[in-house]
């Protein structure tokens, strides 16, 4: 195959195409050689070729191609022993075998090898006819040329279809990229913000409350909380996953219960699901402690594919669910809410005296990816459609017109023949461009053309080469019914042939014997049916490639989400590491006293910083917030605690307006003493930046760029506001 890397659709097309090429060849050669043997037109050794085809289709690889060409050369050269020269034979089984084999070669032999094979095989066939029937009717250059032309048409079809596969791959990969970006952004928002914010929140609550001065001495539980907080924020290596078992064991140690575990040692789950299950388990255990009246519970955890089940069993008092007091109902409802919100389930089974079993089921989330079947199918259909248009026009212009011109004596009315030929070309062009036009009127037009053409051929020429419309009227039908099921196309084609045969039979005489008609019919029909089959294969292929691609896409998306989350997590860790981590560490070790004013100030500042960090959406960039954040950080390093809050969606501001908005806040922060409140409020046409602080009198800055400033002095506190009003 080509050196260039193929896309998934193209690869799958080449694989399927090869399979069908070999199958088609096996059937056509098998039928035509068997028919020839039965009619006595060939010796039984002709069946050996089918044996070879069978072997090739079954075991053959790309490396078998040269051997296959050699076999076909041998078949061509041995014609003196395998064919009979019968002027009414209409073509030999060897010709059919050679033709069908060459038609399948584009799928089996790449590029230059294909041209060489066609040349060699056609040459061998020609030489064979000269050896078998020197100067006789078997020797026919036009037939050889047409056989080579058929191979060329088949190659054109192959190229068309393959190019459409390439287009499909292109569209699919662009689409996939867009969807992946969207899925990653969504996952980052949902997972990162919710989960990590929740975990980090516990740490920032600890710092906030100490900063508020609620603790007057070192507490043993504070050290434990600080250790837990450290553990939670220090998970830079967790790949978006958490160990459910570790979470459950942690919860169990906070209850007085003895637990019997039926669980694996470790079960890594997406953080979202692990947290949901552990929260549910915690509530279930709380209920055991409160209501069951026993000191023991069983916890079993199992994973079954994408489903994780946690079961919490006790052998306590139990209760009658039908008569549960509403307050206890409230508790189990809260477990159910939690699980069903993410597509899971929660069941509580209990009866008085028989204990209670709480079952929590989580279905692991997988990023949803939409399929591309439609895109691929449409691309294939376009490719195949134009390939068939080219084939039909080539047959009518290059094969049929010369026949018509060569034998004017064969027809009762030459104008009628030309009219029919013109009619078929017209039908082909209409079917090519007016794809929305109803199909059946075109089929009827072809049938009328065909029957007029047959009626104006002299009986003794019927079914012979001069009767060009006999098989070739089927070509426009192939084009017209290309999108229909194969059965319908095959039935209409057969109907068209039977109509012609019936017309010929009525007048008795014909140019060919019965075996000859069978051969001649085969030679055209197999090609036509072959194309119908390719169309069907491509339709199926579009669906299966779509499925394969979707699977691959799912995996790629999940991996990319994981990588992205990991990066976000590392970034956050890096931001927390210098100040927050040592602070929590000091509290955990009991080295820092929460009653010490300096410790409290540090805690307050860190809590504010963490909250800002977590409040920000990593997937959007807001220059105004970034600028303000930078000055807040600076103020906090100088020991000025800043309480920051923002509400409302902000329009994007022109940079000069943004600078004027932030200038007063920056000036105030630089000279502030004590607590500062900094707020931003946004509406669609106005943005306000406000600062309240004990600071030096605000400098007299001019208004401009749509920004107005105003100040209020209350005792020693300045309230400075800058408002940007939109042009409206």
């Amino acid at each position, binding site marked *: 195959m080509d050196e260039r890397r193929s896309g998934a659709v193209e690869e799958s097309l080449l694989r399927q195409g090869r399979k069908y090429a070999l199958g088609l060849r096996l059937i056509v050669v098998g039928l035509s050689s068997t028919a020839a043997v039965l009619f006595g037109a060939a010796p039984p050794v002709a069946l050996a070729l089918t044996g070879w085809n069978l072997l090739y289709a079954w075991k053959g690889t790309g490396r078998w191609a040269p051997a296959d060409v050699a076999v076909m050369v041998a078949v061509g050269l041995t014609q003196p022993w395998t064919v009979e020269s019968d002027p009414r034979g209409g073509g030999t089984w060897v010709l059919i075998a050679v033709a069908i084999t060459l038609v399948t070669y584009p799928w089996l032999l790449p590029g230059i090898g294909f041209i060489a094979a066609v040349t060699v095989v056609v040459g061998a066939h020609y030489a064979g006819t000269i050896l078998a029937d020197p100067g006789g009717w078997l020797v026919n250059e036009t037939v050889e040329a047409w056989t080579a032309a058929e191979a060329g048409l088949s190659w054109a079809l192959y190229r068309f279809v393959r190019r459409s596969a390439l287009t499909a791959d292109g569209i699919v990969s662009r689409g996939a990229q867009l969807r992946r970006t969207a899925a990653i952004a969504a996952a980052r928002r949902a997972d990162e913000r*919710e*989960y990590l914010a929740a975990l980090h929140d516990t740490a920032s609550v600890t710092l906030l409350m100490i900063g508020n001065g609620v603790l007057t001495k070192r507490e043993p539980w504070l050290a434990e909380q600080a250790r837990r907080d450290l553990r939670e924020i220090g998970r830079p290596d967790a790949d978006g996953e958490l160990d459910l078992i570790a979470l459950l064991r942690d919860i169990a140690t906070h209850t007085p219960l003895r637990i019997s575990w039926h669980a694996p040692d470790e079960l890594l789950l997406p953080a979202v699901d692990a947290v949901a299950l552990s929260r549910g388990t915690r509530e279930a255990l709380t209920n055991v402690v409160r209501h069951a009246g026993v000191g023991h519970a069983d916890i079993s955890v199992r994973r079954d594919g994408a489903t994780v089940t946690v079961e919490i069993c006790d052998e306590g008092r139990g209760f009658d669910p039908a008569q549960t007091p509403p307050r206890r109902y409230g508790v189990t409802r809260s477990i159910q809410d939690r699980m069903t919100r993410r597509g899971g389930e929660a069941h509580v089974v209990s009866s008085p005296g028989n204990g209670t079993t709480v079952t929590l089921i989580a279905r692991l989330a997988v990023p949803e990816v939409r399929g591309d079947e439609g895109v691929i199918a449409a691309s294939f259909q376009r490719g195949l459609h134009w390939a068939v248009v080219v084939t039909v026009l080539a047959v009518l212009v290059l094969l049929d017109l010369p026949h018509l011109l060569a034998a004017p004596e064969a027809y009762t009315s030459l104008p009628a023949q030309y009219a029919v030929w013109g009619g078929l070309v017209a039908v082909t062009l209409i079917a090519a461009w007016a794809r929305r036009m109803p199909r059946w009127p075109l089929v009827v037009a072809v049938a009328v053309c065909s029957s007029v053409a047959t009626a104006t051929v002299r009986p003794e020429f019927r079914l012979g080469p001069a009767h060009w419309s006999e098989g070739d009227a089927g070509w426009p039908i192939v084009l017209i019914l290309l999108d229909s099921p194969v059965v319908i196309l095959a039935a209409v084609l057969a109907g068209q042939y039977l109509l012609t045969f019936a017309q010929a039979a009525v007048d008795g005489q014909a140019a060919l014997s019965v075996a000859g008609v069978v051969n001649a019919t085969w030679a055209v029909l197999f090609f036509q049916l072959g194309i119908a089959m390719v169309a069907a294969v491509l339709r199926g292929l579009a669906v299966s490639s779509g499925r394969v691609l979707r699977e691959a896409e799912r995996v790629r998306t999940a991996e990319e989400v994981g990588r992205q989350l990991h990066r976000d997590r590392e970034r956050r860790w890096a931001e927390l590491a210098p100040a927050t981590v040592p602070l929590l560490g000091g509290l955990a070790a009991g080295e820092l006293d929460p009653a010490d004013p300096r410790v409290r100030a540090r805690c307050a500042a860190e809590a504010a910083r963490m909250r800002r960090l977590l409040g920000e959406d990593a997937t959007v960039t807001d220059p105004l917030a970034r600028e303000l954040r930078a000055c807040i950080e600076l103020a906090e390093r100088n020991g000025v605690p800043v309480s920051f809050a923002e509400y409302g969606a902000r329009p994007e501001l022109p940079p000069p307006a943004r600078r004027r908005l932030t200038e007063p806040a920056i000036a105030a922060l630089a000279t502030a003493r004590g607590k500062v*409140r900094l707020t931003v*409020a946004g509406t669609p046409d106005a943005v306000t930046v406000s600062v309240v602080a004990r600071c030096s009198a605000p400098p007299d800055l001019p208004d401009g760029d749509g920004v107005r400033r105003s100040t209020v002095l209350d005792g020693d506190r300045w309230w400075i506001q800058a408002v940007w009003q939109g042009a409206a």
Partner: protein
Amino acid sequence: MITVVVVDDHPVVQAGVRAWCALADPPIEVVAWGPDVSAAWLAPGATADVVVLDLQLDVTGPAYGDLKRLVDAGRQVIVYSMRADRDTVLTCLDIGACTYLTKAEGEDHLVAAIAAAAAGTPYTPPALSGAFGTDDRPHRPRLSPRETEVLLEWFHSESKEMVARRLHLTVHRVNSCLERVRVKYANVGREAPTKAALVARALQDGLLTTDDL
């Protein structure tokens, strides 16, 4: 004495709320505390005047279901959460929470909010005020420009005196303006007994008329 049940799984928060309540005048008694909502349903928390509820924001999302059930049982609930985003704040108010406090506002506003909730009067802390003032959802109540102005200035300054000075109003006018907005919010969205009571009382007191709603 006002009694309170605190639903929060963080020990430091418990310590903080206890400390503030003990220093309150008149004092407030924290009668129960628990890491999940069952503390508010079982004695002694079941009869507390006010529920201080942490939304338990974890990855599975806010515990709106717990809030709904408490509100529907006629409880006065103060949502006290780490989260300050507008959607969460306004959703809790729509469900029927008395008020919404961010954890950062606790020190300055929790005691006052508990007293107001126990008395069945509205209380609008600055963060909630900011969420009201920038609300752009289609079903928001109709506010006058002055009301929006008061909401935003209160959010910015955290000082009613400053708001009054800036807008040339009395502190009393600022308060009644905030109350009117709160009642207007109680009059829209999901129906809840606490919201209906707030509206009925405001109409009775003449704080606003049916035309204002």
